[in-house]
């Protein structure tokens, strides 16, 4: 009996520690400085430049991820060809790659002395130290989150529905837009929210491949690091930008949960958040 009580207490204590450990840093971001001061910091040029750059590079990078990743995921999900498993593994590899490795890889491939460096400079394209480099770094690390989820979403579409569409006179393209896309859209939305969140927080590969130039390549995470590290009064600014990122990330997480939960006009659950999912 007392053993059971002890066990219960231990489980409860462990849960409290875990929850507190995870929540405290987030609370601290908001609690350290007064809200008025946090908001006030948001108008400083470093912050606005970083915010604009983060948004701009995120939107462009995610547009590219959707545009290229969707057909690729569809192909990998619906066709069987030799080397398919290998292709899936390669697509997913950046998920587990340390960001520093991603940065080195991007430099080695597209940098001035990289594999494609000669070709690119011959074409008059300079990537290093431009916001294009940020886009590439963000797309590289975040794309696999989307593609992986998109493959799963396309694979889940009932083959009979696809066959029905074809026998009803719809070719492959029409079937893709009228059957695959609508039925996979929840999975696609979930994957894209994950990719967006990962891309927004991208740090390591960006700082190595694109550098940290205010207004050119300095995104919010890079600006936080720089303010904190190199400016005596930068901590408050770093806190303000962190608070901003917490809010945006939280919104993305909610959007993700909604995307996963939501079914067109069939609410199986009235709860926004699935219990422990």
């Amino acid at each position, binding site marked *: 009996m007392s053993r059971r009580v002890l066990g219960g207490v231990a489980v409860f204590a462990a849960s409290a520690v875990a929850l507190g450990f995870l929540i405290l840093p987030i609370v601290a971001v908001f609690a350290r400085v007064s809200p008025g001061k946090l908001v006030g910091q948001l108008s400083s040029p470093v912050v606005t430049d970083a915010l604009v750059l983060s948004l701009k590079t995120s939107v462009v990078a995610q547009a590219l991820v959707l545009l290229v990743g969707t057909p690729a995921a569809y192909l990998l999900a619906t066709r069987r060809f030799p080397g398919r498993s290998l292709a899936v593994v390669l697509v997913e590899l950046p998920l587990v790659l340390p960001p520093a490795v991603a940065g080195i890889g991007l430099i080695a491939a597209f940098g001035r002395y990289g594999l494609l460096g000669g070709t690119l400079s011959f074409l008059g394209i300079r990537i290093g130290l431009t916001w294009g480099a940020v886009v590439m770094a963000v797309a590289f690390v975040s794309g696999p989150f989307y593609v992986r989820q998109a493959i799963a979403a396309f694979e889940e579409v009932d083959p009979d529905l696809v066959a029905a569409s*074809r*026998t*009803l*006179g*719809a070719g492959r393209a029409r079937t893709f837009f009228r059957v695959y896309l609508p039925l996979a859209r929840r999975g696609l939305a979930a994957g894209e929210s994950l990719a967006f969140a990962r891309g927004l927080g991208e740090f390591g590969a960006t700082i190595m491949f694109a550098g940290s130039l205010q207004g050119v390549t300095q995104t919010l995470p890079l600006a936080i690091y720089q303010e904190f590290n190199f400016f005596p009064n930068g901590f408050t600014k770093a806190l303000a930008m962190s608070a901003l990122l917490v809010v945006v990330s939280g919104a993305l997480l909610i959007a993700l949960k909604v995307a996963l939960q939501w079914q067109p006009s069939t609410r199986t659950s009235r709860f926004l958040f699935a219990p422990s999912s």
Partner: protein
Amino acid sequence: MATLNADFTLPLRAFELELALDVSKTVALVGPSGAGKTSVLRVIAGLAQPSRGGVSLDGESWNGLPPEARRVGFVFQDYALFPHLRVRANVAYGAAGRPVDDVLTRFGIAHLAEAHPRELSGGERQRVALARALARDPAVLLLDEPLAALDAHTKTEVRHELAELLRDLGLPTLLVTHDYEDAAALADEVGVLVEGKLRQFGPPAELVARPRDAFVASFTGANLLRGRAQPGGGGLTTVRLEGGEEVFSVDEAEGEVGVVVYPWEVAVARAHEPDADSALNVVRGEVGSLVEIANRVRVRVGPLTAEVTAASAARLELARGGVAYATFKATGTRLVPL
């Protein structure tokens, strides 16, 4: 009337599906699950590519045509209605912009036009699936287990409706089912498909009257008893059953045979008076199960299933465990190779 010709080979996992078939009225392919029935429909619809031969309609080859270019109306086993589209949009999917109100009305689903598939009953889903397939204006109709997804009560009703519809349409129709009763009720001709090959093909009555082998016989619902045949006198063949009884048939055979007798040709009695009965064959046995189906009762007597009216069953006071005599005529007893 148009004729669909299918003549092809399709390698499947465990065996090769090999088929040569002309369809101009309604043809049913029956067989156990895994016999390759659905694969036949998939080849005709262009969803699977045969290794030899192909499909043609009135002599015009469909080989190499993708599914969307073949004029088939395909009703899938679980109906495959698009879950994200309302009934109207489902039906309009293949209608190439033609209005579908007439089709909805004809199938009695106009009031469901704005419903989502998941809100429909099994019977309603089936009608939507049929309406959708026909709104495409197909030249050929393919039905995969059209009644399997329905409960027993709905099934009888829908079977009747479907039989009428198929007659009115006059399209070459190929349907597959594992249920011989459904096949016999819906089709003009029935083919028994086992492991990718047609065992027998003909009108349903012929399959029952002259089953080619033991499998076809038992699949069409007959009792199948094993025995050893020997030519006897008077044009009768004597068969000694595994249980020891002797039965007689007008079919000629010798050696190991299957004795085929349909349940509706078996009479059941509590006592047996040989002199007062024209039926030559008698099997005595314990009453096993009694299953009531509508106004009939299926009685198991020893190794035989008999079908009697509910009134007779009541009059005979048949009860499980009691002894009864199953009698059947030599003329209703067929002998088939095992």
